[in-house]
């Protein structure tokens, strides 16, 4: 039996932590989104070739959204579980009558909520710079939620795996950020010279960015079905890892 009260307590407390730094949480994405638009949209955008009838400014919105979403969701979620381990406050969670379901719904639910708030802020800010419309708004929402869920779980795993601050930051820095930048956030991989356009397909982030772009403009680098499949696969893999962690108590219980 899952305890909804326990779940709700964890969820609201995590959101409360987010609201403590609300000003920074809102200002940072507004500022970075604006900067990207000024640099990439206005300065470079004019020289970009045609991108299948989509204006370059509009073209980069899904990429930008994905960039922030992946980074913020992963770090929010990893810190959410790493900090209690680091400070020792995790004792309370471990001694409470809560299991994997309450913990995940609480922590990951909160991280997802934060991500949705962020996505909204970014989309609103982007609107100030370019005119755009979303071809499949419902699918876009579903896709954003899926990605947020997957990377909240991924962050959660990172936060449990890391036993120092360096490890906590290393995966996002060494893998996530570079792969995101190389993943077609600011360009279509079809623009890459051979053989890089094929090599790029080995980068899983390409499918995420492409998937979101498809929900926005109805066309993208890879098939939308493939994008969904890869996102769901990643989500399932994360769930499996977390189920294992909770079953064995790895890095959670001494």
């Amino acid at each position, binding site marked *: *039996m899952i305890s909804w*009260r*326990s779940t709700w307590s964890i969820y609201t407390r995590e959101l409360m932590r987010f609201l*403590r730094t609300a000003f920074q949480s809102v200002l940072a994405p507004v500022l970075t989104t604006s900067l990207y638009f000024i640099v990439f949209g206005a300065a470079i955008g004019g020289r970009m070739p045609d991108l299948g009838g989509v204006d370059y400014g509009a073209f980069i919105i899904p990429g930008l959204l994905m960039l922030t979403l992946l980074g913020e969701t992963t770090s929010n979620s990893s810190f959410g579980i790493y900090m209690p381990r680091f400070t020792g406050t995790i*004792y309370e*969670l471990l*001694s409470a*009558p809560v299991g994997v379901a309450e913990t995940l719904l609480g922590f990951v639910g909160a991280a997802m909520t934060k991500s949705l708030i962020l996505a909204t802020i970014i989309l609103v800010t982007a609107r100030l710079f370019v005119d755009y419309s979303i071809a499949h708004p419902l699918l876009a929402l579903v896709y954003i939620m899926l990605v947020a869920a997957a990377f909240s779980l991924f962050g959660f795993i990172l936060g449990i795996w890391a036993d120092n601050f360096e490890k906590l930051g290393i995966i996002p820095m060494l893998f996530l950020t570079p792969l995101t930048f190389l993943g077609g956030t600011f360009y279509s991989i079809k623009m890459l010279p051979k053989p890089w356009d094929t090599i790029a397909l080995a980068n899983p982030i390409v499918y995420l960015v492409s998937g979101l772009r498809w929900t926005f403009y109805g066309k993208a680098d890879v098939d939308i079905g493939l994008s969904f499949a890869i996102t769901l696969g990643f989500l399932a893999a994360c769930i499996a890892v977390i189920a294992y962690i909770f079953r064995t108590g790895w890095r959670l*219980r*001494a």
Partner: protein
Amino acid sequence: MDPILELSGLSKVYPGGLKALDDVDLTIRKGEIFALLGPNGAGKTTLIGAVCGIVRPTSGTIRAFGHDMASDWRQARSRIGLVPQELATDMFEPVRRAVSYSRGLFGLAPDPARIEEILRSLSLWDKRDERIMALSGGMKRRVLIAKALAHEPDLLFLDEPTAGVDVELRKGMWAIIDEMRGRGVTIILTTHYIEEAEMMADRVGIINRGKLLMVDEKDAMMARLGRTEAHITLAKPLASLPPEIAHFPVELEAGGTSLCYRGGDGTGKGKAEVAALTKALIVSGIDYTGIDTRESSLEDIFVSLLGEGEGAA
């Protein structure tokens, strides 16, 4: 007496290979206060952690409220409270919110009146809207107690509740523990202050290097291992023990200038015997200039038990 907690064959070997708990058997009765005594690194916190789900036991079973904690932990955990040894709490959170969170986390409906009652009983009500980091160390410890009490546990673990707490507060803490006992809460506490165990506990367990060396009623332990020690300074040195007092457990010390009595059993028998000894001395015409008597405390018992343990190891 109903057992509320039963540990059997409980062992814990940490990944490094250190055996922090070694085949511990222990039964805690409903409503008692049990003090776990032992030096640093004895395994007290590990034992508590094993029951509370912080530490995974290597072997053995734990049953709380009749539930096996390995499989049926949900039911039991909701009735167990834990005050950890380390001051670990979200320092940015205000006091009342932190305590309310604990209640919710354990699956209970919000109850502001109950939270207020708990905060008042711990003299934290005035600080309810302060961030925890703005409190003193003793207050922080009381916040941890309030958090542990928020879900109204029937079994409470206090891991060194009075460490780093001043005399005044320590007395306050004892009063709180007493009050909880009054409400029927079973309490297991660890402490380095033996007088604390002597004063509060119904039963005492002594642990060292992961082994539970002895568990007994505090009074029985005192009676069994307690001693009276008396040193009688003689007016004139004696060369040998006079036959009149030879039936007492006495011996000469300090070159015959002093008589040492060691006997009794911690129930007052020793004091009476010392009185009889002094009378016998007067009757035999042996004069003395001073008497110094001392009842051994749990501390002495503790030290001597640990000494034996070292000897065996």
